[in-house]
């Protein structure tokens, strides 16, 4: 469920960009996903396979770069990667932290075929214009 919602959001954003770039068919998408989001790569891929069918994303490859958790202590400034769910600073014991990495849900890039003939859009793209 979680992953399907995330993929739907990603496809909305990419479709908008693809239309702006005159891209008719997307062939590859690269996402960056942090560990803290609890989004499972396998479930993301499954959701993508189902939701992309019959759209401009049909048959595209989904690449997922996983990001480990990296925190910065707001008290002493040290950076650390907790192995467990313990966000206390190993140096000073404070749990006032900033998440540097591990909370990402980013679309890094996508690849696609540009539409060569002006005005010749697939129905999905035309509908979204």
């Amino acid at each position, binding site marked *: *469920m*979680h992953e399907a919602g995330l993929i739907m959001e990603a496809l909305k954003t990419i479709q908008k*960009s693809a239309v702006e770039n005159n891209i008719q068919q997307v062939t590859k998408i690269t996402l960056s996903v942090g560990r803290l989001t*609890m989004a499972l790569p396998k479930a993301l891929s499954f959701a993508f396979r189902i939701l992309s069918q019959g759209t401009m994303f049909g048959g595209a490859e989904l690449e997922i770069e996983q990001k480990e958790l990296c925190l910065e202590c707001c008290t002493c400034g040290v950076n650390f990667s907790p192995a467990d769910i313990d966000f206390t600073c190993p140096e000073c014991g404070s749990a006032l932290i900033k*998440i540097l990495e591990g909370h990402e849900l*980013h679309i890094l890039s996508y690849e696609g075929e540009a539409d060569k003939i002006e005005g010749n859009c697939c129905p999905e793209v035309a509908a979204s214009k």
Partner: protein
Amino acid sequence: MKVIVAQKLLQANEEIAGENRHLLARHGVLTLNLISAPGAGKTTLLEKTIAALKEEMAIGVIEGDIYTTKDAERIASQQVEVVQINTHGACHLDAQMTQEALNALSLAQLDLLFIENVGNLVCPAEFDLGENYKVALLSITEGSDKPAKYPLVFHEAQAVILNKIDLLHHMDFDLETMLEQVKKIKEDLIVFPLSAKTSEGMGAWLQWLKSLVPKKKKLFATAW
């Protein structure tokens, strides 16, 4: 052709959440997004909170539910403004659904707005709705390990309500462990242990809400 997007996956949601936040600030409405697992007691807490505060401030509620209107009916019986969102299967509210609900509310009249999210501790933590604060609600029947299992929602929240403390004597809930875990995720997180059913501990939570609402009205007066 490769296009570098380098933007948040939830960018579309966040843009709409920004619009919602702006709209709510313009009307000076303090908005809380209430997140918990199913059955933790969100609706009971809201019923009790509304009953205690509705004479002092104008309260509105957006009720998120997958299919039913049961919770909205319970809230409506308190004679406050309620808008129901049925997500039709989606496990969280998003900013677009919230915006449609905001448009159906008389924001100019409201002081305090609760958004009761769909019961789920995972997805709602990711979706900004445009609220001022997220409040996580956990009931002691769920077990004291929940902050460690769902750290994001506790990190994102400004306050945690620990509900059903009237059952503490019947459960193996380790309050100290739970509070320790919460502090390990976010040191300055405010915890309100209470029982919405018996009203034990409700005072501190109500006081916190009262302290936030006038502040917001003051901000509103200076900013606009």
